[in-house]
């Protein structure tokens, strides 16, 4: 049995057994584990009474849900309009080259997941990169080098 299932009861208990709480449950499980496992999906489906196929249709419709585990560090490059104009795409491409993965993928050693987001509300400091929960602002290629170094030396 995977580790999500052992603690999931505690999350379930927070909400009534109603279909309208499906999204709340998926959000809480994801923030606890970074992704939602197959077993968790089944348990949420049983609990809320939402058929499993429909639960998957919800989980895949919303971009914030992940059904696969993510890397130890999550790098999210902002591609909102302000960041786009100030070279956000260049940052994505540089990271893709450096990590040897495409946006949306995780490195084989499970060290990094690279992703893009649409505006994180810090447009004044574009382009912006969220390294785990830390905002890195006015990003340039040389800053990327330093950020990766800093993460690796941890």
């Amino acid at each position, binding site marked *: 049995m995977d580790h999500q299932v052992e603690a999931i009861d505690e999350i379930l208990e927070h909400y009534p057994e109603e279909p309208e709480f499906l999204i709340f449950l998926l959000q809480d499980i994801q923030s606890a584990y970074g992704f939602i496992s197959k077993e968790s999906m089944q348990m949420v489906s049983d609990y809320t009474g*939402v058929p499993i196929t429909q639960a998957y249709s919800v989980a895949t*419709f919303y971009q914030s849900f992940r059904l696969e585990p993510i890397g130890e560090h999550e790098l999210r490059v902002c591609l909102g309009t302000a960041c786009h*104009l100030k*070279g956000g795409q*260049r940052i994505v491409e540089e990271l893709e080259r450096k990590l040897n993965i495409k946006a949306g993928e995780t490195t084989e050693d499970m060290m990094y997941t690279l992703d893009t987001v649409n505006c994180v509300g*810090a447009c004044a400091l*574009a382009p912006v990169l969220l390294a785990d929960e830390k905002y890195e602002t006015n990003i340039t290629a040389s800053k990327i080098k330093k950020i990766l170094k800093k993460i690796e030396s941890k």
Partner: protein
Amino acid sequence: MSNGNTAISIDSIRLNSLEDLNTLRQNIIDKHDPNKPEVLICHGTGCIANGSVEVIDAFKKICADADIDAKIMPGIKATGCQGLCSKGPLVLIKPQGLFYQKVKASDVEDIIQKTIIKNEPVERLLYKDPKTGKPIKTEEEIPYYSLQKRVILKNIGKIDPTSIHDKIAVGGYQALAKALKTMTPEEVVTEVANSGLRGRGGAGFPTGRKWQGALKAVEKKGGPVYVVVNGDEGDPGAFMDCAIMEGDPHAVLEGLILGAYALGANKGYLYIRAEYPLAVKHLEMAMEQARAHGLLGDNILNSGFSFDAQINRGAGAFVCGESTALFTSIEGKAGTPRPKYVRSVEEGLWGNPTVLNNVETWANIPLIIKKGADWYSSIGTPKSTGTKVFCLVGKVNNVGLVEVPMGTPITKIVDEIGGGIPSGKPFKAVQTGGPSGGCIPNKLKDTPMDFDSLTDAGAMMGSGAMIVMDEHDCVVDIGRYFLRFLEEESCGKCIPCRLGLTKMREILDNFSAGKGKIEDIETLQSLAKAIQDGALCALGTSAPNPCLTTIKFFKDEYLAHINDQKCPAGVCKELITYSIDPDACTGCRSCARLCPENCITGKKKEPHVINADKCIRCGICLETCKFDAVQVN
């Protein structure tokens, strides 16, 4: 994310009347000595990203350790966005009203020693007039602020958003208490209708009329009725709703409770974008404090009226900002839009009458009730009353939140308040309204920013993003950008939107690769027409706007891509090459070290060259060069 404020204890004194509220307010004001120093540190998302949490920590630590007389021991407050995000972290010192910019933790010792203890400004942290270089001491003297009319933003950046007492001190919940005591629900609806307020979420629908529609529906089919806050702010380059929810959550909540009273709703929802955790946290705290004070929940202010609300976090789908999709999402399902044969005021959430309004719309309600419809409609233009908060970003000197009366010309916002663009030249265009809006060229810079003038120009108010573009921004590229965004966000329910947007984007891809044909422009226009006519929701029907307005106003730039295979702005990768100006290059090797293809060669301290065959035009050398030696051809 940590919040800079220590947890405030909720005085769980239940308030039972307007008089109770006034007594509490007077107590709070009496306890506060206006001459005592106070340090207000911006804790908005922009300043947090810039390191304001470290500044807050430094103030707390240094004040605790330093030997400061109790009489001048400063109060330390973390506030919402103070407005001029590009100069953050911002710190405001009271009572002098000193405005400090770009404050780092290492500056805090100086601020304490000089400003707090000796009452002298720290010169280097003051704002400098860009023209004269002269330091300016207070916010009121800085043109960025003095040229605005801050009504919605008035308290944001001045109060601690996690303290209901701070809010009550500046008049919070007065409008609610007044309405419950002296106004019938119908009178509240009438006041809102007379104010001329139009929805700030994009379409500009008259709020009073929407509420009247909901009342009629309730009359016809009976309750329940719901009130809902649209805090999804999906426009990818706008953060005004974020700043309002983070910086003045009680304003949104008070507006919602007033709306609930007017419409007879007992339950409300706040649907908030997934990427805004601090907004969620501050609204949760606001609701908890309001409940403890008898301002939310059962029998509000002992009036017999009961109302409560819950927060639903979005899960990252732009289309969920659309009203019917938002309702479907609150119901726990995949948020796809529904056909609107019946309007949502009649059949919204769970098929019941529902009023959905934008965050800023709700925040306007307490002002209208407190100061009256006449006061409100005296601001702005006859058809677009009140003020509007804009998010001024892109290639402009002062980036941040700007609030001006509706109808203020674009040039006043960009050139005066925004201080123009960094190169000092005229701006090229302003994109308003995000993915549903359009690009307005410099020649139309006198266009008033109000609902109807923008629609006439082919753009849209949208939520209020203003993205300033300069001569290095390509209109084909921006058209492609929004089409790609909408293509990814389309729910796929209807064919014109799902396939049409992809087809339009592919044509623009060809343009930017120099493979376009002149006939393609007509194809784009007919595809746009088909999408506008055939799509179910406004995501689809407004999706062609950014592309169409750029064709309308910048046809020459399109033709340069098609006929000459040139990108005049130097953006479209396949149409440009990079080279190094031998006269400007100092041979510092910065670019050569970072070039991912190792295609920049040359001896140290001598001009370098780029091998055009190997160059992938990633732009890193251009971004890196401090001597402007890299040229785009």
